[in-house]
């Protein structure tokens, strides 16, 4: 899929400050949006390449690094992601990301499909933090 296959692609970050979670969308240019679509493609290719059926995720289970799993968002520990999916009009904020790295919980991309449905991709910020720290 290319960026033209989506009505819109947006980038955002989730911060946790003093146990308070807040989501912000960050304005990005086309090159970043294309990179996000590329990341999405890589994920779906890897996910589809894994053999076997999709299994329900269990916290108590031990999994290998790549497995086909799914989970219902109505779990207490997924409240932040559940809120993210249902939160309308997430505020756009020009945040100084390098100075707020320690508060970064995860980053996300919202893909609005041509049929009106949306997909949200969430990623832990380890690589993201490393990249930003390199630039500091």
């Amino acid at each position, binding site marked *: 899929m290319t960026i033209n296959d989506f009505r819109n692609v947006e980038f955002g970050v989730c911060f946790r400050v003093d146990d308070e979670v807040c989501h912000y969308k960050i304005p990005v240019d086309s090159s970043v949006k294309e990179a996000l679509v590329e990341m999405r493609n890589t994920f779906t290719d890897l996910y589809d390449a894994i053999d076997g059926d999709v299994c329900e995720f269990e916290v108590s289970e031990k999994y290998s690094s790549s497995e086909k799993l799914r989970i219902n968002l109505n779990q207490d520990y997924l409240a932040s992601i559940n809120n993210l999916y249902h939160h309308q009009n997430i*505020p756009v904020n*020009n945040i100084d990301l390098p100075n707020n790295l320690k508060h970064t919980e995860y980053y996300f991309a*919202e893909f609005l499909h041509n049929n009106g449905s949306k997909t949200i991709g969430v990623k832990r910020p380890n690589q993201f933090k490393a990249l930003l720290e390199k630039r500091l």
Partner: protein
Amino acid sequence: MKHTEGLPFIKFMMLISSLCPLFILVGIRGIDEKIIAEKYVWYIIVTLIVIPFVSILIRIKVAKRNRDLFTLNTSETSLNKEYLFAYLLTVLLPLYSVAVSGKRDLYGILGAIFFVIFILWNLNMHFINVLFAFSGYKVYTLTSNNAVILLSTRQHINADTKNIIAHRLSNSVYIEIKNYQYDNK
């Protein structure tokens, strides 16, 4: 975490642009020739109208080039007709009635304009643009949990409209540009 409006220059230009009817009215009423010559008054007024408007047009062009698009949920919206009325009563009419016949009057009106800009800036009321209004743009307020989002659009938003993709002018002001293929379904 501090929420920033972003693009302060464009916000300022939008504010100045929102005052352009006042500048025109001040120009029509005129200022005493002893204070500023008529032609200079009009040079200043044209500059105050053209520069902000051109800046906004450049911002729109940059937003189009960068695909600075955001999806806005329009399930809870309200049309801001009353803002135009409030603007007319609180800004245009009181300032228009001031006759500038001396230096003190001039400083007075400049001070009043400064305070109006200061208040509108802090209230984030920089979205009133008469030039856009003449082109058929209406301003809607969209409900958001953390901030007020304003959408300037030529289309009528009804109950069937769920999402609208629009260009970002600033972090709280968005515009649906005329003749742009948004794919808003």
